């Protein structure tokens, strides 16, 4: 129902009434919309209806105007955004963001810290070495998406919300691994100190490059490690930490895979470029010249062996983990539409791959 113009005219005549304009109440400027709640409440997908759900292929304004609101002339620009939707989009961004909002957890109260009991020194040290490494890694995983936020247009705000949820998740991971290192009689140990593979993520100059390196490769490997956390964990607290972190990492990997898929579907000419990013990243990831990961490898071996008595047992599990990481990485690439990666994968990973199915 439109505002009655006669009421407005009468109001203007009232004594002492300030100048009123009220042109923003014009009927034609207000598209009718009633978003309906679904089973999961009022989600972002539910409000993506009518003009509000029309995500432009190219963001053409540099202001903070919300998608679907009425443009105003003369507004100052806020930023240079990545204009092309295909450069940053993933179709599951809304779903993942809503899930992240539902599945937030607290490292202070949701971990059964009382189950952490004294461990043999070498095992406690190994756990703390792993936690030191993971604390470092999570710093990067929070900083990298954070630095891209300023380039995400409000026309593509769903991606910004997803990236924010990742920054929050990684903060909690950083926090929980630091807490674990400081709760049971040891402390932090040796930091790898910026491996080339990790700095490569921060150095990325393209969103898809960053996403492929961080979400698909690095976080994919970390997620597989977290999902096999029962071989590392020594108590219920650690099992819970790995379980919850794996759940979070699944979202990040899921975004990366679907973003890569979107890019390959909408900008297929970028295939070789993306291969090139991965060529370099695979070479740098855990590169022997880094010299920073030996502590982590040994610590994993010790925790998986339950000590130093039967290292072969740990080596067997570590080998299985390495194979799982490589195969799951390949599977994610296949889902993203980059199955031809199998032929050019770095041999350090390629030799761990199972033969292709079919």
């Amino acid at each position, binding site marked *: 129902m439109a*505002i009655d113009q006669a009421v*407005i005219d009468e109001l203007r005549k009232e004594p002492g*009434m300030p100048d009123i304009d009220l042109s923003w109440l014009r009927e034609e400027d*207000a598209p*009718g*919309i*009633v*978003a309906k709640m679904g089973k999961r*409440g*009022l989600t972002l997908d539910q409000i993506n209806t*009518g003009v*509000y759900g029309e995500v432009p292929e190219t963001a053409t304004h540099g202001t*903070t105007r*919300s998608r*679907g*609101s009425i443009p*105003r002339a003369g*507004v*100052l620009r*806020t930023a240079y955004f990545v204009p092309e939707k295909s450069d940053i989009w993933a179709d599951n961004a809304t779903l993942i*963001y809503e899930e992240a*909002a539902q599945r937030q957890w*607290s490292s*202070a*109260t949701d971990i059964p810290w009382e189950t952490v009991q004294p461990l043999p020194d070498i095992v406690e040290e190994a756990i703390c070495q792993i936690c030191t490494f993971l604390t470092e890694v999570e*710093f*990067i995983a*929070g*900083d990298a998406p954070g*630095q*891209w*936020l*300023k380039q995400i247009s409000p026309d593509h705000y769903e991606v*910004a*919300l997803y990236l*924010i949820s990742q*920054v*929050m998740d990684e903060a*909690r991971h950083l926090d929980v691994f*630091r807490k674990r290192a*400081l709760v*049971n009689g*040891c*402390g*932090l*140990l*040796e*930091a790898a*100190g*910026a491996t080339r593979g*990790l700095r490569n993520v921060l150095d990325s100059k393209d969103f898809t490059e960053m996403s492929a390196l961080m979400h698909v490769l690095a976080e994919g490997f970390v997620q597989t490690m977290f999902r096999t956390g029962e071989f590392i964990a020594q108590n219920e607290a650690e099992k819970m930490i790995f379980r919850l972190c794996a759940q979070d990492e699944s979202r990040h990997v899921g975004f990366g895979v679907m973003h890569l898929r979107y890019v390959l579907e909408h900008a297929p000419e970028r295939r070789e470029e993306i291969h090139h990013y991965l060529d370099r990243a695979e070479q740098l990831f855990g590169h*022997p010249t880094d010299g*920073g990961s030996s*502590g982590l490898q040994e*610590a994993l071996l010790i925790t998986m062996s339950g000590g130093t008595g039967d*290292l072969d047992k740990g*080596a067997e599990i570590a080998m299985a983990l390495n194979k799982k990481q490589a195969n799951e990485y390949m599977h994610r690439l296949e889902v993203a539409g980059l199955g031809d990666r199998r032929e050019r994968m*770095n*041999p350090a990973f390629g*030799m761990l791959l199972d033969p292709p199915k079919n």
Partner: protein
Amino acid sequence: MAQKTEKKPAATGNGVSDDLRRKAESKNWPIAIIEKALEGGVKEESLHQAMDAGMTPMQARQMLTEDRKIELGLAWTKVDTERGIRAEVGKKGLTIDAINVGSYADVPDIWPDQTMRPRGAYTKPGAVSMGYTIYSKAEVWSDNLGELYEEAIQRRWAPATDIPWESIAPLPEDRERAIGQILTALCEYNYAVILSLGKWVREVSYGFHEVKLYLSTVLFDAGRHYEAFRKRALANGRGLGVQAPGHRLMPIREAMCYAEMATVVFLMNDSFVLSLYQALAALAQNDAEVELFTLAAQDKARHLAYGVDHTRFLLKHQPERRDEIRRYLNKAEEYLTADRAADTPLREALAIHFGGGLKQIGDGFSKLNDFRHRQLQTYLSRLESAGIEGHENVLWPELAKDL
């Protein structure tokens, strides 16, 4: 018919080709590893690639052979970091403040390290810079960071399910359009904060991880507010209104140092925004709006608490920056008043909302003036808490008219 066969490289007696043997020798790979790999079905081509890629014999042995003898170096167990730390779980669980014990609690005034070393850990010489720019504790610190971080996590909420959206019944056209217009401006403010904070989280060095953790929660809050306000605007028939002029967002965008951004966002703008959230909660038209604005105000109060405490910390440790901080405040005040002057839709929407409908817009303007007076008084008292006294004497003149 002759079958097409692959040409195989010349091999020695034990199945290792001459090419492969030469490469293994040049890369210092024991030939036994090569033999074991070939026996295990690894392709010769893969072995060439592995050696070319820089894989070490140790890594290869670990991956390829079963009867290895593993030797641990354990150098990482001998590093000089503080041991014996047993942080205690308190009433609020294992909090970030609870693990600040021993040397791990020592937050230096200047963080000396450009690497990704966590505070209290050891880094081997040769670690590279990660490109952070903020190494001064006073620039970013506040003593309530740990508390605010944990509180933000404990008090998390999800707009999709924690707001009783079903309580929103159809409203008169003028009321619905007014709230939609107000929310349009608030969405833009929150998006500007998102754009800004993403950059600043990255700039803070790792020694001040509490700051990074806290800023992550602010980012999450700002995203949630953007999301929740957009949902409310689209939930009841009318949608978003006219874009805001954007003047007040300029000082946020233009902040050249962290303290400037923190002053503009957390101390100045958030003070005005918190007052507005609280007023919207008081004037809510249904249970959904009560919950929405109450929860948003709860979040915003944390941001402001940091803004006040951070400024107090900064001025205590760098009192010479007082005038500089005032300049940032004045700039933000100037742009706020420019925004108000240019934003007729928001001003009128607030008057309709405060008055209770279009027909009461005259009364609404009067109430809006009262609100702005209170908003300004509250702002000045918050500045006083932050250690900035007498600011009423140097307020931006246009804003001082609200006194």
